[in-house]
């Protein structure tokens, strides 16, 4: 771990000359694969399945980008990263895009010199506790021992929350979600805190999920999204508009089932036509093939399909759309127009 970090740090400063070159798109095309940073295993968002294939909500975004750029949704090299290693990996050029439930904050955007391409999940930080503790509110946690992943915004929110409410706690810093889960179940801490979506995903893997409750308080805003390095706006645009294409596709009713059909010839809706490349030259403007969005949508489906398939109410994780519904349904998902 430390070695990797050091390597990352060394590369970040360019001791290896030319590690982070500007034209990421050219690099990706030349390489033939997209290097995508994901978590070390958070079921529903990014985790390898039984046969070792990465799947999940964040993984699907990587696949959509690879499909848009390379025309092949499987041309992705997944790089599992901890909360600690993710930023050095991105800064050093080890990965092209980081899609690892990462919170968009001011300092990460400006001080760390990254560019957030949008939000693919509006989240907030919560707490999970064993049901038999009888805790009903996070404010009852005075004196509790709390497990928290290090190197995350979670850690800072936790300190702020307890300070603001003038109650005390003992933090137990932990590297990965998997270890945190193990420590929590072993009783090394009374509560585990992370993004509410992560709590739901983690609880889904417990032997008896009903023995644990997620407390009602959401103590922070956590807009999660993909990010890229500063200094390559073209690449940032590709990631941003791939995400927007998935969101717009849901709004416009384009799904993985009907996208091929709709893209075969121009239809009645001008915006769908432009999105799918049967009208106008949006693909050329962004530096990709005309059918880039078709490939991205065909890779796994539109935003709604990805949500339902990976983390939606039908899955063990069972998250409702909530804030992540389309703006037309009272949510925050809103793609700028394709024109």
């Amino acid at each position, binding site marked *: 771990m430390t070695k990797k*970090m050091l390597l990352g740090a060394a590369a970040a*400063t*360019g*001791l290896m*000359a030319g590690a982070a070159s500007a034209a990421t798109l050219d690099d990706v095309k030349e390489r033939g694969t997209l290097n995508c940073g994901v978590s070390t295993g958070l079921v529903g968002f990014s985790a390898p399945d039984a046969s070792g294939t990465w799947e999940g909500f964040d993984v699907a975004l990587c696949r959509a980008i690879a499909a848009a750029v390379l025309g092949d949704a499987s041309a992705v090299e997944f790089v599992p990263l901890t909360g600690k290693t993710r*930023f050095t990996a991105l800064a050093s050029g080890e990965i092209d895009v980081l899609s690892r439930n990462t919170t968009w904050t001011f300092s990460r955007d400006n001080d760390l010199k990254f560019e957030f391409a949008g939000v693919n999940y509006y989240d907030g930080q919560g707490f999970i506790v064993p049901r038999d503790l009888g805790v009903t509110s996070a404010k009852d946690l005075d004196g509790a021992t709390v497990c928290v992943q290090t190197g*995350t915004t979670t850690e800072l929110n936790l300190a702020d929350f307890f300070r603001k409410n003038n109650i005390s706690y003992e933090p137990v810093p*932990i590297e990965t979600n998997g270890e945190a889960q193990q420590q929590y179940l072993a009783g090394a801490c009374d509560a585990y805190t992370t993004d509410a979506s992560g709590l739901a995903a983690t609880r889904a893997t417990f032997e008896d999920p009903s023995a644990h409750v997620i407390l009602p308080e959401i103590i922070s805003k956590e807009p999660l999204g993909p990010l890229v390095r*500063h200094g390559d706006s073209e690449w940032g645009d590709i990631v941003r508009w791939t995400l927007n294409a998935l969101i717009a596709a849901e709004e416009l009713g384009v799904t993985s089932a009907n996208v091929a059909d709709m893209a075969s010839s121009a239809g009645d809706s001008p915006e769908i036509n432009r999105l799918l490349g049967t009208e106008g030259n949006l693909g050329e403007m962004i530096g990709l093939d005309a059918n880039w969005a078709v490939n991205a949508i065909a890779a796994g489906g539109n935003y709604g399909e990805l949500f339902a398939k990976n983390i939606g109410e039908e899955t063990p994780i069972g998250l409702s759309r909530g804030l992540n519904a389309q703006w037309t349904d009272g949510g925050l998902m809103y793609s700028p127009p394709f024109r």
Partner: protein
Amino acid sequence: MASIPDQDHSGFRPSMLLNDRRYRGLTYQFIALIVIIFLMAWLGMNLVSNLAAAGLNFSYSFLGDPAGYDINQALIEYDSQSSHLRAAIVGLLNTLLVAIMGCITATVIGVTAGVLRLSKNWLVARLMSLYVEAFRNVPVLIWILMIGTIVQLGPSPRVYLGEEPERGLIFGLFAFTNRGITSPAPIWEAGSVWVVVALVASIVAAWAYMRFRKKALFSSGTLYPAWPVLPILVVPAVAFYFILGQPIGLNMPDTLANRFNLSGGFEIQRPLIALWLALSVYTGAFIAENVRAGILAVSKGQTEAAASLGLRPRRIMNLVILPQALRVIIPPLISQYLNLTKNSSLAIAVGYADITATLGGITLNQTGRAIESILLLMLFYLVISLSISAAMNVYNASVALKER
């Protein structure tokens, strides 16, 4: 008449830098030095220019900013509003704490195991071989995780809590839980300082008595008893404690303060226990081998000579073998201490907040100042290691063979 040219003793000509074997070495060293300087300068320039190209400025001003995170075990006052520098110092002190505790126990374990491995008792010797081979052939991280899991097997602290707890405190004083050990903490009231002074003075007195006893034995052969050490140590401090009206109270673990953990008292947390035990037994295995090597290096004739003088086996070990073996043991022992200190950087595996976890982990991540943090971290470890080395070298010089 052919003249024989005089040998040139005085003159030094520049061409000799290439031709003369006496000076050629200097030329090569000089060239190597220039190359190294250029290489370092090139790397440095590369660092600076690439940092500038990435729009990052090299600065340590982040150390003054509030850290924003909490640390579970701090030897000095710390909260989330303290600076990153203070967080680093908290981590540094935690590193030193576990390193010092680890070095002491590793030495005790190592010396015991090393001596016992040479025992004539078959079972004891084999058991010690088993310990050494098992511990030094498995990576230390595995042991840390393993022991971290083992010390987690205690009951939840909740069994001690409430008006009618499932379990009472052990002797009404201690609690062993899966989060650590809680014991009463002393409360220092007015006058308590004199009790401490008395205790320190009696420790000095006890040491002086042992020295006197040894001197008497060596000079005149009179053997004074060892038992007076105990009253010398205990009586004055206890007397002062009662004369001054019991100035040291006890802060008992409070089982009613909240519903999650014991509060008050003195708590040694699970991460520290796990890391300390793991580093001690792991490094102890290496030290055991050093001790065994040192003892075997003392010639057998020494043992036989001592035996023929009528010394008993324990005396032979303590007075003849070990003092000579120390000369062989100390130098590799230094590197074991350094290893232990550096291995403590694996602390985060069990959630212990050492300097790698605070400065090199959380601070690095929250500020994104990777280069600055890593450089500072390297500097801290370098200073710690060099200090240990220096201290041990002084000790080594004191036990080294003095040739007169």
